[in-house]
């Protein structure tokens, strides 16, 4: 089997100790929670930290606190299995529960955490390969090389945002808590991500994502639909997260439609929301919004399926998501 490189393993029991360990070991250290992303990447030499700081032993990172006014604060170490099955989250934030439940396979959801999912490394068919495979194409700019094989003349990396949780976080208007030696800050999820396959996070390397805050409920509905080859195991080739806020008369007050696995960040499409605002959520407005979501989508040839078909699917899955919010259809794949 593929071998992990050698590394030192540090297992703090408090956030403070984790931050101190990171400060002590510097840029050669990385945090790990469930390890379902990092360890396979390390086996492929995509990341080769000298020190791995485990967050699994920090009890406070696995707590969930709710408040009706402020919303829900979820510890970054809560597992995806827990989120997918938690009754409270299923009742009030079904999109969050569904997205968590659609990640990979049951064993990986048992290990994987929401924090790790939100920070998932961007993915690409030229990057998620073994060292020997990548060597055969002289590597790529995301790791060890110079070129982006997806778009050889491009100055940037086009690796794909592939988390199911991230588009939901952005659509909901959720935020994250980042802790570092210099303090704690709360950042809207939308501002956590950046459209670059390498610098896909605005989080500083020394910052630790400790919490995930969901907004107060009431007056809005949200969902997430995922497109992938198979009903399990696969990363999304397209995710559509949508939140729609309603006026009492049923017309749309506001909306946030976010595309996952289309760019290097969860892509908020304001034009899709504009197509809905002020109108009832009906077939006509949904078709307009789906079309608006489809237009700016520019998938690249770096995931499963053909890119032309994936772009076509933005319209279909955009429609599916909004239809589901409308209540006509039970969606999801």
């Amino acid at each position, binding site marked *: 089997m593929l071998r992990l490189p050698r590394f030192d393993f540090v297992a703090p029991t408090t956030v403070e100790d984790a931050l101190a360990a990171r400060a002590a070991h510097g840029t050669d250290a990385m945090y790990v929670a469930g390890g379902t992303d990092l360890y396979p990447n390390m086996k492929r030499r995509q990341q080769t930290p000298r020190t791995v700081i485990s967050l699994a032993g920090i009890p406070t990172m696995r707590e969930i606190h709710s408040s009706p006014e402020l919303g829900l604060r979820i510890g970054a170490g809560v597992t995806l299995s827990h989120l997918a099955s938690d009754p409270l989250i299923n009742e009030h934030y079904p999109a969050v529960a569904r997205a968590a439940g659609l990640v990979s396979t049951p064993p990986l959801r048992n290990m994987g955490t929401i924090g790790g999912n939100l920070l998932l490394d961007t993915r690409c068919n030229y990057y998620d390969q073994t060292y020997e495979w990548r060597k055969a194409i002289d590597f790529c700019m995301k790791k060890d090389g110079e070129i982006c094989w997806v778009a050889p003349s491009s100055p940037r990396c086009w690796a794909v945002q592939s988390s199911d949780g991230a588009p939901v976080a952005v659509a909901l208007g959720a935020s994250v808590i980042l802790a570092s030696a210099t303090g704690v800050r709360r950042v809207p999820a939308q501002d956590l991500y950046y459209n670059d396959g390498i610098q896909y996070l605005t989080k500083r390397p020394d910052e630790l994502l400790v919490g995930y805050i969901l907004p107060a409920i009431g007056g809005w509905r949200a969902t997430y639909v995922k497109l992938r080859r198979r009903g*399990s195991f*696969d990363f999304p080739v397209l995710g559509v997260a949508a939140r729609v806020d309603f006026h009492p008369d049923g017309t749309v007050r506001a909306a946030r439609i976010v595309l996952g696995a289309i760019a290097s960040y969860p892509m908020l499409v304001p034009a899709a929301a504009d197509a809905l605002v002020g109108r009832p959520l009906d077939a006509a407005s949904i078709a307009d919004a789906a079309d608006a979501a489809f237009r700016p989508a520019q998938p690249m040839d770096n995931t499963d399926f053909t890119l032309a078909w994936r772009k076509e699917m933005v319209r*279909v899955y955009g429609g599916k998501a909004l239809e589901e919010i409308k209540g006509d259809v039970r969606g999801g794949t």
Partner: protein
Amino acid sequence: MGTNESPFRVIGTPRPKIDAVAKVTGALLFADDLVRPRMLHCKLLRAPHPHALIVGIDTTRAAVLPGVAAVLTGRDLPVPFGILPVSQDEHALCIERVRFVGDGVAAVAAVDEDTALAACELIDVEYEPLRAIASIEDALATREPALHDYGDDANVHKRVALDFGGVDDAMQGADVVREDVFFYEGNTHLAMEQHAALAEWSADGRLTLWSSTQTPHYVHRALSKVLELDPAHVRVIATPNGGGFGGKSDPFGHEIVVAELARRTGRPVKICLTREEVFYCHRGRHPTLMKIKTGLTRDGRILAMDFTSFLDGGAYGSYGVASTYYTGALQTVTYQVPAYRFRGVRVFTNKPPCGPKRGHGTPQPRFALECHLDKIAEQLGVDPAEWRQRILQPPNSVTANWLRIGSMALGHCISTVVQASGWAQKFRQLPFGHGVGIACSSYISGAGLPIYWNNMPHSSVQLKLDRSGGVAAFCGSTDIGQGSDSVLAFCVAEVLGIEPIDIRVVTGDTDLAPVDLGSYSSRVTMMTGHAAIQAAVRARDVLALAVAAKLGVAGDRLTVAGRRVFDAEDPRRSVSFAEAVQIAESGQGAVGTVGSYTPPRSPGRYKGAGVGPSPAYSYSCAVAEVEVEPSTGIVRVPKVWIAHDIGQAINPLLALGQVEGSVYMGLGEALMEEMTYRDAERRMVHHHPSMLEYKTPTTLEMCDVESFLIEEAEPGGPFGAKEVGQGPLLPIPPAVANAVYDAVGVRIDQVPCAPHAVLRALRDKMKGKDGRYGPTRVPDYNFPEASLVRTPAQGGDGREANGRPHDEVGENRESTAGVSTAGVSTAGAPPQEKR
């Protein structure tokens, strides 16, 4: 269905595999579980270029790394090998040239895998890149560079042109002529167990290799050849395979490498491949481009069929000559085809080598044929199920290409699934987006000829009976998960009147057991079964003779059952089985018997007649029901009904497992599996050599399967049995494609049936264009004139008619004896008079 009362006690009863408990508890030891004292670990350095000359290799830095015991390069193992005598084109490690990304270049034995890996990185290889050959068209058009210096032309490995009965003339008389083009993408086996091998030399200089191989006998031959060892001093033990499906049927470089490393270091050496390396071993389904043309009468009788195939063989020969013939061999065994032409060409490209995968060379043409027939049925305005019933090849017949058919229950298979699926209420009647499709198929129950020319048995069994009442059954056959060890025990237990648990099975070991050619071509139940029966009958006769004297009963009145030997007319006169052995042992000494089996000779005598003949043909028919989402083109398959003509199930539990497993594998090929590569600019790297990105169905995509075993005993089969391990895969891809047409009216003439293809075809159809997705033409290739072979109906003698009498004795058997994974031709073979 035969009689209601089974004449058997063990045969035909559902029983767990004899190693089932060991498998589910983890007690069974696979190759990578084995650990020997002082064992070293091996890693291979693999080529990063699809096609390059090796200018120089410097292993100095690797050799001095602490913990490294030995380093090998290709020059240390200069003798070539390959599964077929005609394609000895592989080396354990590349010597002068690498031919695909992943080709082995150097090997290290070290104290652990990490050290071996680190040493591999210290090996400096200087390459001179060559232009890579990327595709069938590229290979046909490119003379230089050529991957190999042998073959039928430049980058053409093999070409075949055979005409049975004169197709052009027969086509002239047709009322209806239809021609279609199809493409079947390559795919791989994806066995759960990665290949592993462990080599050890004894103090007296004998080699033992444990390996996850389907063919220990052929590995034994390759090891002896490359290492230049007396075969009597080489022992190969096939460990239980965690799945094979054809992917472990070739001798592999890594097996030879660990043997040589163990020789040099004096220590046991083990290698276990990574999943990515298994993708590079490949030997899977050939990507195949096909053209099929059929002429019929107005009332639907086939007059002539003309079939052409182009196979992308990858970088080495492997079983490719056989694969090529197989794409043309079995079109004739399902339906009456009085005149048939087959032309095929296999090319070399700079990709991992293709070879035999479940169904070897026949799923591609079967997909083409069954989709083609579906279109013809529509053109003729007939129900495709009912029409197939009218044109079936009869049992006990000889086909136009000289294949002898024995039992043939395909009609029964068709009627069974038609009824079970509610075909009459569904076909062309389900709402848009829902459809049903039907397809049939056939497969060999073992190949008529071995891979290398010889007159010896294909399978042999030795039995040792002793006073404990236990029986040991020795056979070279290899259990790859299909349950062949169990079949061996069941056959012996049936004949001797004892229980399977009483049989100690010793298999897959070239030192301990007599030769069986291996677990390929669906041959083991047929051939080991016959050998086991013969050995067991002989043992029963020995016991009967001894007991008859003791009991004072005529030997022919004695019978066995329930672990007793008794007088059939007076069962009270009996002895226990153990007592019977003791009596025999007291009288004659040690009790042991042997049995063996060689397939009957086929009537075909033309060059290429070695591929296709089999002691018996299994038949399958499947109906698939599909749901097609018109907005996405996504195809789901909720259910498959499948009936398989097995002759007689040795164990229906295992047989149904093979049927369902075949449906699963066929479904993956139909819907998603693709072994594909980037373009030459991107070094022809494999798209996705991982289990995450090489898409194969999960339990969520797997359909419900309603399986039927059709049991009409085959006179040539052991207890009437035929194969089941491969045939049921074959109808699945065409049944799915035909169902997609029924659902949404578009033809997807290629495998896999990907959503973008369906969506494109739907869009085209809406625009008034042809609702079809698939290739439109095959390359212009100048085949040689086909050898004309008169058919049995024309009074032919099985030989070429048009003046190419091949030299029956002059040809070098090792280099021309053709072919098969299953069978190698016999081009140069003298008649086997002894049969």
